[in-house]
């Protein structure tokens, strides 16, 4: 989804483009609790989407691991879109035009020229957004809670252990998290440096 939205924003001019960009980028600058609040309004049992889902299926996403995934997806998506859009915009327009004049459609050109040339930026975006998703805390707490064995993501567990004074477990998780985040950043930087 991130690649599709980024491609649209990078290559098309249409009415409402900037608004769409702002909407998708908003979770990057909003406090995560505000993002979580919007997700409750949208997906809560009485929410705009949540009500429809509940009426159809008798099931609510709230306080399930799906909700934790949704929260992580929403806060990580802007990073994927921003990085991928920049990578797609950096592809030389002459190469894209060359593909068109050689008879290839826009879809073929995207698959065989644009996206392969933007590959490193897309991979960097994927790594960065995955790291951001793993570290998600506020929005997850709002819509998934912190139910042990069910929705307690690692950041939520660190908070719970620190709150209850279980520092040894918190320390292990913090060190693990720091190493993983450092590794992700290193990989993302490597990809970014290899962009032509």
């Amino acid at each position, binding site marked *: 989804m991130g690649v599709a939205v980024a491609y649209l924003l990078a290559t098309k001019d249409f009415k409402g483009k900037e608004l769409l960009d702002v909407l998708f980028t908003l979770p990057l600058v909003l406090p995560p609790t505000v993002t979580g609040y919007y997700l409750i309004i949208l997906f809560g049992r009485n929410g705009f989407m949540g009500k429809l889902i509940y009426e159809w299926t008798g099931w609510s996403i709230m306080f399930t691991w799906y909700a934790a995934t949704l929260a992580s997806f929403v806060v990580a998506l802007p990073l994927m879109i921003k990085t991928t859009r920049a990578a797609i915009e950096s592809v*030389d327009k*002459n190469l894209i*035009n060359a593909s*068109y*004049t*050689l*008879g290839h459609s826009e879809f073929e050109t995207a698959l065989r*020229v644009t996206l*392969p040339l933007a590959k490193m930026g897309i991979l960097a975006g994927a790594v960065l957004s995955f790291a951001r998703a793993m570290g998600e805390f506020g929005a997850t707490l709002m819509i998934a809670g912190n139910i042990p064995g069910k929705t307690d993501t690692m950041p939520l567990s660190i908070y719970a252990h620190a709150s209850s004074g279980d520092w040894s477990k918190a320390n292990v998780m913090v060190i693990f998290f720091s190493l993983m985040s450092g590794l992700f950043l290193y990989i993302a930087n490597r990809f970014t440096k290899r962009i032509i």
Partner: protein
Amino acid sequence: MGLSVRLLKKVKGFVLDVEWEIEDELAILFGGSGSGKSMTLQLIAGLMEPEAGFIRSNGNVFFDKAAGINISPQERSLGYVFQDRILFPHMTVRGNIAYGLKNASRFEKEERVKKMIKLFHLQGLEEMSPSEISGGQKQRVALARALIGRPKALLLDEPFSALDNPLRLEMRRLLQEIRVEFQIPVILVTHDVFEAYTMGNQVIVYSDGKVVERGTPGEIFHLRAGLEIEKILAFSSSK
């Protein structure tokens, strides 16, 4: 008639307003920087849309504002060689050439690619990436890629400007050779006097978005070299 155009395009204060026609020959679009030569090629290729006019080639209408016809660049079947960044950097030499051929069986594709590799003297470079070959070789690959699909016309946007003199001479010779093989209109954009004088059957001189002179190289550069030509030549020699 090889190619016939009438183009009107306004972009940020610049107005291109030209009309000319050529046979199946090599025509030179000659003029200083910013005179509208490259824009003309982009309009012919369908990468930009004229505000008025028409583009016709050997009975095919690519664009006609009055008739509401605007064929997409994909369907115009025109070979286009750009000035720089010309090859797909993630494909091999073979891959780049094969990319120019659509709707062909695997066997046919292989045969045609082999033929082009031979014609453009690229044997031994097939599996190399563009970063591993020289500037002249890159231009030969770009020409092979543009011509493998048997286009209706060939558009060359200062393809030799980044090459040093011996390579430019070699490329000019090659272009003359392939014109024998591909009997199609070729339009070469250049601001190089020597290129314009030695290569074209016809020279179309651009200045500030308009055609100011047309004729054979001899006519343009000897018999009736007007003020515009003098200005372009003076500018070229001062660079």
